[in-house]
């Protein structure tokens, strides 16, 4: 079962309860509530007359987790993309790769960390409690549940809305699907959502190349060894022809020694 969050922007009244609950549970200092930052893991942007709650999209196949060289970011089967700050070496590839530009960095610290929403995994989810933001919402604009159930709910709201909603559940297929879903009455591109993101999971882009490496190593070694063998054999025959008889031990007096003499 994969857990997810559905945010219905038409129901949001902009009270910022989610932002504050997030800051409280994660012990983040006060600061701007309108932009994601290392101190604000969910923010409330006001765009096109709507209050747009931003947070990590918790992709089903996250780019950040696939690019992390040490596996500090991980997608859990239960839904959240979590971060192990003790492994992170600070290459910031996750930030560069995230199609939603979510992870933020503690640029002003000497020993910085990547910061982003982790769906309250350690603080609440692990103990069977829903994320703080969804409990704080007074209008059920943002709700927590099973991803499949939420998709069904979102679709039925679109159907029942009679044109109230844009016919699109953002996060259903974006970047291969996300565990944070949005409904809106305004087209998503007007709300600053990256609507042009690929429908294919991002990790595939690099995996298509990486997965070929073992085959490539095999073929390339054969080619290199072949070239070396042919060339050195030819040189040896040439030398033979010139009357320079290599000794009984072919290797000993052949190319090994020669390459060693001034390598």
């Amino acid at each position, binding site marked *: 079962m994969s857990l997810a969050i559905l945010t219905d922007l038409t129901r949001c009244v902009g*009270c*910022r309860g989610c932002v504050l609950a997030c800051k409280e549970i994660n012990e983040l200092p006060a600061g701007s509530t309108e932009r994601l930052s290392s101190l604000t893991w969910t923010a409330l942007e006001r765009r096109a007359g709507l209050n747009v709650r931003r947070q990590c999209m918790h992709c089903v196949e996250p*780019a950040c987790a696939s*690019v992390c*060289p040490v596996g500090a970011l991980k997608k859990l089967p239960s839904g959240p993309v979590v971060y192990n700050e003790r492994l*992170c070496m600070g*290459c910031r590839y996750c930030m560069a790769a995230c199609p939603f530009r979510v992870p933020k960095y503690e640029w002003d610290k*000497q020993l910085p*960390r990547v910061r982003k929403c982790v769906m309250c995994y350690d603080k609440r989810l692990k103990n069977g409690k829903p994320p703080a933001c969804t409990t704080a919402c007074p209008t059920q604009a943002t709700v927590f549940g099973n991803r499949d159930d939420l998709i069904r709910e979102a679709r039925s709201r679109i159907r029942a809305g009679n044109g109230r909603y844009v016919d699109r559940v953002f996060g259903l297929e974006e970047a291969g699907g996300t565990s944070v879903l949005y409904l809106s009455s305004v087209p998503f591109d007007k709300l600053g959502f990256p609507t042009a993101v690929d429908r294919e999971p991002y990790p595939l882009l690099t995996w298509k190349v990486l997965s070929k490496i073992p085959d490539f190593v095999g073929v390339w070694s054969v080619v290199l060894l072949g070239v070396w063998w042919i060339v050195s054999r030819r040189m040896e025959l040439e030398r033979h022809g010139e009357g320079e008889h290599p000794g009984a031990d072919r290797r000993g007096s052949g190319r090994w020694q020669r390459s060693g*003499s001034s390598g």
Partner: protein
Amino acid sequence: MARLWSKVTFWRVVAAATLAAGAYATVVRFVMGLGASSNMSDGFPWGIWIGFDILVGVGLAAGGFTITATVHLLDLERYRPIVRPTVLTAFLGYLLAIAGLLFDLGRPDRVWHPMFWWNPHSVMFEIGWCVMLYTTVLALEFSPMILEPLGYRKPLRVIHLFTVPLVLAGVMLSTLHQSSLGSLFLIFPGKLHAFWYSLWLPVLFFLSAVAAGLSMVILESFLSARAFGRRLELPLLEGLARVVVVVLTLYLVVRFQDLGSRSALDGFALTTGEEQLFALEVFFGSFLPMILLSLPPVRRDRTGLFCSALLVVLGFVLNRLNTAVTGREGTMDTVYFPTWMEFAVTASLVCAGFIAFALAARYLNVFTEEPARSDHRFQEPRGKIGARIGQLALTTFGVAIVVAALKLKTPAVAAVAPVPAEPVATKRSALTLPPDLTFPAGKDSPGVVKFKHRSHVSAGRPDCAVCHAGSFPMMKTVQGIASAGSDRMHGADRCGGCHDGKRAFAYKEYCEACHTPRPKTAAPSATARGTGR
């Protein structure tokens, strides 16, 4: 004293100033952090330390594996004299790239983590391992230069025994990570301009690294000839130049084939900054040197060869910077231009490279032949057609870069007009407000306080932040908050903040407005918890 002054030359002063600035920047970087020393930000997490120090540093060291393979695998003995200086250049290139990485990593103390925590799905993990192993290979290939003057025979014999396996491993590892540096950017669709984002990035990165690596060997031979009075192996370098022509041709074919198939060049007009940079990079950095080096008069002329090789290297630098920095500017939220400290660190690393090379050339067995100091001094030929063409091309490139840089104003950040937020009219009944809360009564309190969200939240424009951003944390229990005592509760940062007689009735006016008088017998039952749902 006079002897001391004679050692002060222009370049030494420049080097000293650069290193001093770099030392200052280093202290700022490691004491104050990345934010204080660089202009990188959440909107632009990778800067020139990745774009130049690592991508260029590793790429220009590609001469190392190509030359060792030429001599030890293809048995082209005549290239042997340049093996050692090339290996030295490559080794220094990798060491400096690793040094640059230590500056760039947020936690340089954990640079070793990929050795123990693996993620085979990460391109960077693969590059990390390859670079680590290849630097070891280079260190071993370099070691005879240091072991010979020390006279260590036994280790030398062991190393010599492993020459060919080392070269093979070097070619394998280099092929993998030179191309993977391009694969790093495959996961940036939509974040890198179409001129540079391509599914062929791994192939393009590999080919351009080979061309630039060989050009770097040519340049390095010229510089050592000049600095150490070495004989210039001109026929040998000419041979390398021919290979550069072939590789550049292949590179351009793949590049334009790919750009064409994606229709990335449709409507190309040389007007945008990206178009100009692309034109500069491809025309001056690949096409022009390919033509020049295929002309025997240019290729066989010292100046012509030098200028053409320099064009390839500069074009390579531009390509890597375009891929890592400028090609991303257009799609990022923020504008990035490095701080002087970022430049200082990068310049210091380059400077350290030159100094290390000079020291190694002086004290180690880098050049195995006799120095031919007096006879073969580097001479500037005058009036030769090849030299003129080369100089002209290089100068034009220089001028074009300066012009483009001056024209490339900082792209105006699209001023997004703030959309006035329409108040979302909400019926009070649509709000699911938290249940009523009962603050327990203290000793001297007239009674418990029943708090109703319903009478405190404006239905038209509810704003939790009014109270919850301050001293009424959502996730805390009522008891926890009330335990502060009545003075605190009546204070300006709690109830008293609004109940001051102006915004709302004053708390002093009428206690029973909030406090429920104590029942005479029963003890107060305060069980309500906050929103600990």
